[in-house]
């Protein structure tokens, strides 16, 4: 199925000297990094290191104070000054998946997936339905289309959330610990889906603690600590041959 059109090697995400404050503290402190189109990047790091904040800055859910961010060729402006048209473009280009699914509880699985195409892209009910049914089949939940999200398992709900994001025909996904709340076998359902999407050329920036998955499926691993990037490279290099003491310490804790 033709879900995604990859933009090849063009930069999908680019940050230069980005600073972001939450409350009194600077949570992101001069971050520079980029993600190429079609690339899969795993963002790791200790709790409170600013991973979620960074992800949210990329689609305007959180404001940043200074620096430059561009996503899929659109500039985001500091302090919430981005025009809504650009914000909408960025948000529909990079779908966001949350750790706690955030499905719409008053709508069926099918209606959850149809919602974006109808209310954002102005698709007709029939178009949206055809698209949504395809996606629900794609994530293996055809039998659950009519059910309410509350009656699904966590892994199933997360797959619906991915289908909901894919319905906007994004070029990439921002995933914030999307398997953290799941049991091991449910985790692999979701991670398997992610790996397939990667094969289809989707750009993926994922915050994760699944070091095994990152090693196998990520093109790069980025380690964020104290609001700063302290490591950025291919998995093999970051995981096995890091020169940074801090990185080795962190990996020690995660892997055990």
């Amino acid at each position, binding site marked *: 199925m033709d879900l995604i059109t990859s933009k090849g090697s063009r930069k999908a995400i680019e940050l230069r000297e980005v600073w972001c404050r939450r409350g009194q503290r600077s949570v992101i402190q001069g971050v520079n990094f980029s993600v190429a189109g079609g690339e899969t990047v795993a963002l790791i790091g200790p709790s409170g290191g600013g991973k979620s904040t960074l992800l949210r800055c990329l*689609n305007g*859910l959180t404001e940043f104070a200074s620096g430059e961010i561009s996503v899929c060729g659109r500039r985001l402006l500091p302090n919430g000054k981005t025009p*809504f048209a650009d914000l*909408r473009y960025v*948000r*529909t280009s990079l*779908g*966001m998946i*949350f750790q*706690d699914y*955030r*499905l*719409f*509880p*008053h709508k069926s699985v099918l209606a959850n997936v149809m*919602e*974006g195409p109808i*209310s*954002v*892209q102005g698709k007709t009910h029939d178009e949206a339905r055809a698209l949504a049914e395809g996606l629900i089949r794609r994530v293996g939940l055809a039998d659950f289309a009519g059910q*309410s999200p*509350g*009656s699904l398992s966590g892994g199933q709900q997360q797959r619906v959330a991915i289908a*909901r*994001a894919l319905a*906007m025909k994004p070029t990439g996904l921002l995933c914030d610990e999307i398997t953290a709340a799941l049991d091991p076998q449910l985790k692999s359902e979701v991670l398997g889906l992610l790996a397939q999407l990667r094969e289809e050329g989707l750009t993926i920036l994922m915050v994760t603690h699944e070091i095994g998955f990152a090693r196998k499926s990520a093109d790069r691993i980025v380690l964020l600590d104290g609001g700063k990037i302290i490591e950025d490279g291919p998995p093999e290099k970051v995981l096995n041959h890091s020169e940074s003491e801090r990185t080795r310490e962190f990996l020690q804790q995660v892997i055990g």
Partner: protein
Amino acid sequence: MRSPNLYAFLVLAWMIAFAGQPAGAQETASGKPILFGSDIEGGGPYLFIGPDGKPLGFELDIVRALEKRMEIPVRHLQYDFASLVPGLLKGDFAMAMNGLEVTPERKEKVRFTRPYYIYRQQLAARAGEKRFEDLDSAMGISGLRFATMEATAAERFLRQKGVDLATYPSPTEAYAELALGRIDAVLLDLPMAVFYAKKNPQLRFCGPPVEPGEYAIAVAPSNPELLEKLNSALIGMIDSGELRQILEKWDLWDEVQVSLAGGGLHDHSQSQKWSVFTILQMLMGGALITIALTVCSFAFAILIGFPLALLRVYGPSPLRLLVIIHVEFFRGIPVYLLLLLVYFGLPELLPGLSLNPFVASVIGLGLNYSAYESEIYRSALQTVPAGQWEAALSLGMDRITAFRRIIAPQAMRVALPPMTGDLVALFKDTSIAGAISLVELNKQYQILAKSSLQFLEIGLMTALIYLVLSVPLGWLSRHLEKSMGKDENN
């Protein structure tokens, strides 16, 4: 045309139509109908509803005669007795006629026609009373409890004498309390005493009637033409003997009216039976008003409450403060007071504003419930997790779309059960509108009960109508609460 029920229904329609229609005092010149304000609830023999649902009373007979002589149609407007003078000054009706005694206080505010009846005060006691024989001896006894009707000359007289006094909105309550022994003596205008106490074997008259005074028709000072027309019509009625005929018919003619003895007494309201069908029909009319009032007030409450809740949750802080003040004010004061403020107070503030009782009730009840509704919506909106906003926004929705399609429907499910509960409460609270003379179900009950003296039967019928309407709403509320609760557990 032997169809009393149809007639009762027409009378009802007539009452409802005019209860909601204020009339300026200036309308006399045009020949359009003018309104006379009077309280049906005050009862016999002035103006009351007969067993067939048809209005009766010696004042109604006088009005019919005046109507012919003046060649101006006159219609009745149901109005609380104690509010007749302010209502007249407000312009709700052109003339007040309801056994209105000519007192110095009233003369300061309104103009009176020449009197159409000379009243006196009659003291009544229980049949077995031995302690006193007349008003003088009664007032000599300490610890005796008197009663009368509020806003009457008798009240004024007894207050001046400094006796222990209870007052009631109508004579029926006073006599009922007397028969029950909760009070010892009732002093009231002779017509009421004759109508209500004389035929009651538990009660007896004590001594001769005393303290004569005059009943006259009150007109606004701004309307001298009407006063003149009424006066010349009254002179015509007295000269021709028509007034005497009417008073005789109602057993009100006595030596005080002119020094002439009247014919035999005939009692108008003894052994008359009200048909259940008539009563039910009239109560249904009241129930319709109650339903209309409930629906309109609730719609008004939602219309105000919803935007207020939006401001409270998403608005800037100065506006949020205003909403808090609105909520605390309107749920902090009694609805009754609010209703009086809207109905009598607002026209003082905005002269020329003439709210009919229905509209005033909708405003009063609506404002009161807007406070509760906005609180329900506020807490319902706050139960929707912030994550739902973020999920909607990250799909590319603007805030309005996100609110309309994602947030509001979820909040609605939380708000629905308490809203249904409020609807039931409001339905019952509409009975307060009787205070500003709207004849809704409860007021209709009071009028019927006081006219027929059947408090228990009619009271139970009224309660049944309230229950039939409110109990299903209560079930719906509990059902919604349960089914919404289930959703949350999953």
